[in-house]
């Protein structure tokens, strides 16, 4: 079962490279996504047995992020299928600077997309730290060509930064892996396997200093990929230049994958009684992320970058939540789920907006509600969702995290959190309202967008809404299980 | 409730037009003139009630309603005001709030009626009227609060009675301040010098008189009468404060009427020896009155 999850998109991806007919290729994409989602659903219903000697297994955290990834991919695949029908294999005019450029061949795009899914799936199912590392690195490599879909200098620059920064981060994570293996080496010469369950079981007899250094290195390494400030620098560039569907996946799924990596580390720390050691770092990085995102969200002129910074913000909130422990972990996980859905929705919508207005500049987008009512409405709904306005799910998760902060006696953290959330809210409000309301210019076409442009974000938005109204029992159980492994008991 | 309890009201109804006659005679005395007859206001009222009316085409039913509502409210207010230590027809805790509210009602409809004509002069008068009365209102109520604190009661009818005697000895300064403030409020509310000049013929400088420029006939009679009543009511407050109480009810009543005339004389004297203040100075006067009573209240705390 677990094998199937990884192999399926892998094979499909390889096939996609050689397929000739675009329609079949797109069909393959959607079909694979559907199958993947189905298998994931089955996994949710009944946890599959571990494979590869325990290297691959699905625990609560894996299950959660696998679910998010698979579902997002499904939604994105619908969008991409429609998108490629319009966008692929034609010369396009750059909306910012007016030059002509090509897009990458569709085969490469779809192939990489499927490989990307395979890599992300591997992240969620691998229990072995080495394998996890390989998988995370693979997500970087598989997504680089996706970011470079539009062949022009800005996307190239974004890709280059993405590659270089993430590679440095991932290299540090490799070092962290080595440190971890040293920590797992016993004086007697024996050593534990680098499998999560093994390490957690023997956490108390790991060599503490090595574990600590390893932990810090993991923070910097996976933190880079997760987009925690000040390691987030690749994020706005990559998100703003990638096609919107890819941005949706990057923000909604990849960041979570890196977060999952860090969760694994924290699980060991907690088991080793070093929970507090990591917590400071989580909180510090989380708060810095909030500050940095506040700085750049306020007065932001590019709406895709705005969304990217909002991802930094949300990763910051999640980090603070994990750092707070207790109910905060529960909140953080819930936040991760909600953020993925909401952010993917917004990125897909930003693709609609970009297609209509031919500009990423907030000031050039006016009157979305009139020009494209459905997109406009969803855009506002997404805005409310991402800022944590009830009855959307992010409200509950933010509330839980705040409550954890207050209950844990971290009043200052809570106040900082509140203050920066307020600042960010102001920045977001300014941008989103200006875009949605008002009267569009005469040159802008009016009329609804296509169904493939509306349905996926609408479904995502609906889910965020549902998660704000009620949290399904199964999800709640999973979140509780994760929280327990991270030293939280809600 | 017998006939006697109607006495203060009846006296007010009958004698109030006399006060302006007294004031005018006092002023004439100071100016060395003979002056108008004591009963001139009665004559005016009589004459006006005989007349027909001319209405501006701009006006509406409100213009006609203004004097009626004004007079009705003033009459109702008159039922609340005691004379000396003779209780009023209607007395209950915090009746002065209803009193102040009814006077507000008078003002509201006078002003609205003035605005109904569309005349810029009447608009000007209306503007000044609401301006000054808004500032006089706090002074009046704080004064009453001080009094109430002194008398430990909340009804106009019982407030003045006990004040008169030993209180003046005990809390003379406090009461003195209140009397001064009430006097200022009286002058402002009744459009007397130094706030307003009822005798001027330059519309630009008037307040009350200019508001009723377009009224005529019975309407004007109503307005005049309610103004006279209003003066009576305010004078009654001052009289109530300063009048010494004797044992005899009738004696008290007589003294009170004499006191009312005395207050009119004082007003006449003030009108004679002072000039009308510049409009920008008036607020200072009224705020000053407010400050006086506030000080009085603070003094009464000790």
């Amino acid at each position, binding site marked *: 079962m677990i094998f199937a999850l990884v192999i399926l998109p892998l094979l499909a991806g390889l096939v996609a490279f050689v397929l000739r007919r675009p329609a079949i290729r797109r069909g393959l994409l959607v079909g694979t996504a559907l199958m993947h989602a189905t298998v994931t659903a089955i996994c949710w219903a009944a946890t599959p047995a571990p494979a590869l000697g325990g290297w691959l297994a699905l625990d609560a955290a894996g299950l959660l992020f696998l679910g998010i990834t698979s579902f997002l991919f499904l939604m994105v695949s619908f969008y991409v299928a429609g998108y490629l029908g319009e966008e692929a294999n034609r010369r396009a005019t750059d909306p910012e600077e007016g030059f002509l450029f090509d897009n990458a061949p569709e085969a490469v795009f779809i192939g990489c997309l499927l490989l990307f899914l395979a890599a992300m799936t591997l992240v969620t199912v691998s229990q072995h730290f080495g394998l996890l590392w390989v998988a995370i690195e693979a997500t970087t490599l598989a997504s680089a060509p996706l970011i470079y879909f539009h062949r022009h200098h800005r996307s190239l620059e974004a890709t280059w930064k993405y590659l270089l920064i993430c590679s440095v981060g991932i290299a540090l994570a490799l070092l962290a892996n080595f440190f971890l293996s040293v920590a797992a080496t016993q004086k007697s010469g024996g050593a534990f396997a680098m499998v999560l369950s093994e390490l957690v079981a023997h956490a108390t007899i790991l060599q503490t200093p090595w574990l600590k250094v390893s932990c810090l290195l993991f923070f910097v390494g996976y933190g880079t990929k997760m987009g925690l400030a000040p390691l987030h620098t690749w994020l706005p560039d990559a998100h703003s230049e990638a096609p919107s569907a890819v941005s949706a996946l990057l923000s909604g799924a990849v960041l979570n994958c890196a977060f999952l990596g860090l969760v694994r580390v924290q699980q060991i720390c907690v088991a080793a009684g070093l929970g507090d050691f990591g917590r400071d770092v989580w909180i510090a990085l989380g708060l810095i992320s909030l500050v940095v995102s506040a700085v750049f969200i306020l007065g932001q002129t590019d709406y895709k970058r705005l969304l990217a910074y909002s991802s930094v913000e949300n990763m910051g909130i999640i980090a603070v939540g994990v750092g707070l422990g207790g109910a905060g972990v529960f909140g953080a996980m819930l936040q991760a789920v909600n953020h993925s859905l909401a952010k993917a929705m917004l990125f897909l919508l930003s693709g609609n907006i970009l297609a209509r207005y031919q500009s990423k500049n907030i000031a050039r987008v006016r009157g979305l509600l009139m020009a494209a009512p459905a997109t406009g409405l969803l855009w506002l709904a997404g805005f409310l969702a991402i800022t944590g306005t009830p009855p959307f799910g992010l409200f509950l998760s933010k*509330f839980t995290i705040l409550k954890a902060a207050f*209950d844990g006696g971290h009043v200052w953290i809570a106040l900082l959190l509140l203050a920066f959330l307020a600042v960010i809210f102001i920045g977001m409000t300014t941008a989103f309202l200006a875009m949605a309301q008002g009267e569009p210019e005469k040159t802008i076409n009016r009329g609804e967008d296509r169904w493939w442009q509306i349905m996926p974000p609408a479904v995502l938005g609906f889910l965020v809404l549902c998660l704000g109204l009620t949290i399904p029992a199964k999800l709640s159980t999973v979140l509780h299980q994760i929280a327990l492994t991270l030293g939280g008991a809600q | 409730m017998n006939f006697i309890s109607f006495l203060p009201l009846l006296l007010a109804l009958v004698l109030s037009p006399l006060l302006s006659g007294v004031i005018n005679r006092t002023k004439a005395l100071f100016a060395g003139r003979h002056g108008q007859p004591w009963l001139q206001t009665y004559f005016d009222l009589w004459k006006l009630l005989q007349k027909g009316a001319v209405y501006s085409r701009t006006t509406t039913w409100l213009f006609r309603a203004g004097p009626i509502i004004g007079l009705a409210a003033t009459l109702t207010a008159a039922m609340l005001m005691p004379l000396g230590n003779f209780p009023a027809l209607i007395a209950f805790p915090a009746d002065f709030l209803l009193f102040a509210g009814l006077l507000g009602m008078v003002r509201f409809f006078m002003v609205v009626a003035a605005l109904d004509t569309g005349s810029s002069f009447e608009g000007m008068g209306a503007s000044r009227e609401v301006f000054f009365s808004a500032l006089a209102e706090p002074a009046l109520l704080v004064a009453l609060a001080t009094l109430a604190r002194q008398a430990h009661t909340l009804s106009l009818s019982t407030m003045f009675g006990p004040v008169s005697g030993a209180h003046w000895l005990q809390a003379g300064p406090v009461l003195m301040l209140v009397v001064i403030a009430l006097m200022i409020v009286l002058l402002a509310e009744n459009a007397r010098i130094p706030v307003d000049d009822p005798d001027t013929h330059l519309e630009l400088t008037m307040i009350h008189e200019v508001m009723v420029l377009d009224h005529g006939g019975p309407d004007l009679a109503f307005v005049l009468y309610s103004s006279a009543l209003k003066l009576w009511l305010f004078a009654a407050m001052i009289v109530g404060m300063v009048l010494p109480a004797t044992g005899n009810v009738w004696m008290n009543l007589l003294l009170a009427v004499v006191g009312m005339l005395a207050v009119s004389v004082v007003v006449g004297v003030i009108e004679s020896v002072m000039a009308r203040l510049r409009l920008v100075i008036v607020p200072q006067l009224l705020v000053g009155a407010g400050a006086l009573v506030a000080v009085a209240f603070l003094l009464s705390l000790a």
Partner: protein
Amino acid sequence: MWLLSAMAVLLYGAVVALLLMKRPSLNYSWLGAFPVVLAAIIGCIPAIQVLLGGPVEQFHVPWPVPFGEFFIELDPLSAWFLVPTLLLSALSAIYGVGYLRPWQSKRPLGPIWFFYGLLVLGMMLVLLARNAVLFLVAWELMAVASFFLVTFEHERQSVREAGWIYFVATHLGTVFLLAFFLLLARETGSMDFAVWAAQGIHTQGLAGVLFLLAVIGFGTKAGFMPLHVWLPEAHPAAPSHVSALMSGVMIKTGIYGLMRAFTFLGTPPLWWGWGLVAIGLSSGVLGVLFALAQHDLKRLLAYHSVENIGIIALGLGVGLLGMSTGSAVLMVLGFGGGLLHVLNHALFKGLLFLGAGSVVHGTGTREIDHLGGLLKRMPWTAAAFLVGAVAISGLPPLNGFLSEFLIFLGAFKGGISTGGPVAVPLLVVIAGLALIGGLAVACFTKAFGIVFLGEARSEHVSRAHEVDWTMRLPMLMLAAGCAGIGLCAPVMVGSLQRVLENVTTQRPEVVRMTLANTTASLLFVVIGAVTFLLLVAMLVLVRRGLLSDRRVDESVTWGCGYPQPTVRMQYTASSFAQPLTDLFRPLLGTRKKLSAPRGLFPAEAALKTETPDLSREEMYRPMFERGERWLSQLRWLQHGNVQLYILYIAATLLVLLVWKFR
């Protein structure tokens, strides 16, 4: 059960409206308004039952969200707020049917009715929720729905700006509420209002912090000066029936929240009362002063909401002083007056906004100085507006007088018997209320006089017409309500009994006794009022008799000898208010632009005055600008240079290592 069905009707109606009214051709406003009316009727039944002494309804349903529970309860306090909320919602909805007609052919009305339903639902839930999560969800639902209603005409720049200010302000308020609720939750270990009320907060310092948080959080919604900035922007921007609803009842949820918060916080120290009196004074006086200085009818009314919230705050302040000193009289009269004013303000401010809406509907402008003489063209609207104007000025025999009477009475009763620390703030209440009342008369004679009386000042008026019955009926009903409450004063105050027991936590006998004393006074007030009305009737007859056989002529207005008066010579709103605004210029910051007449034969001259909101201009704008400037100094971080980015990574690593291995 009634309540749940009312909410279900609202939700159902809102969704149906959204789904059905998609195209301008499908605009059946009744479809949106009817469920609101129905829900109001259904919802009022239990509320009135509770007020009349019926049992308190509770309703628990597990709600699977963290810390959440669907726990609603209709206690007397909630019921007291619920009744005006539902009534005004229904009347405004009926009004909205007519008011929205001009848009019918232009755009789908589904969204506005959807959000209208949501707003009513949100307000209901806010009043009923007894779980902090549910409360916050309802609170934000209310904010979001009203935001969309405010920005109904978002194609106009000014409306968008107003929407922004409103949304940001309300959100910032919520931030404080979050802190408030979470601190309480930490102290008590529960999210349940019932537990909070039962346990109370016994640490003085913490209670003080909570009090401040509640005042700021709820005060932002209520419109306490200087947290009121959104009010004068949002109310004019919104469609008038929405302004009526927001100003009449939505801002009262802030008052409700504050009163609910008081029940959690234990015995208040004296300074809370001082604080609320100070807030009430500043809101009341500055509110009415700013109102005086406005030329925009709806903006003027919006500032009056600030004023009336100030009056309510004065009442609450008196009540708090009573709670600190254990004086039942102060508690009952202060809270009672405040509560009664909540109801009264809902009626007359709703009425006034609807009246203003009719004016806008008829003439297409909100500029007071462009109007005039509307009484002849819109007699019903004018009469209704007049009733509202008299009521809001706090004049007998209408309802505005009553609530102020109670607060005054409380302040006087306390003022004559207590010592300095209580008596001085009570004196401030007395002086403040008096000043506010006087200024309110000034303001509403201006608003009514300039808009409805005199001659038309521009051609806007010539287009004016009386509104149809859907818009007239709600206004008349509200006017009748204003008069009715005024004349049924003792009954109304009697119905406060249970609410006051709820708020003051005094024994019923104590409350009843204090109320009985008051009721006696009120009976006399009513006698006075009836006498007054009888006298009016009598004088009307007298006047008719006198004039019956005399000549009654018509002519032009007397122009003091000037033969050719024109409409441009009339006093305007600006000139009417000028003496007062000049006096209070330091507080108002009015800007004057005068091009004085020059030369012997001046060709033209103009005077323009403008009074922007002082706290917005002098406080919030600089604060926001400074904050943004300060934050944007960090923008070099994202410099574009990949080397720098790698340096961040290295530096982070180093800092973490040093931090953890020092």
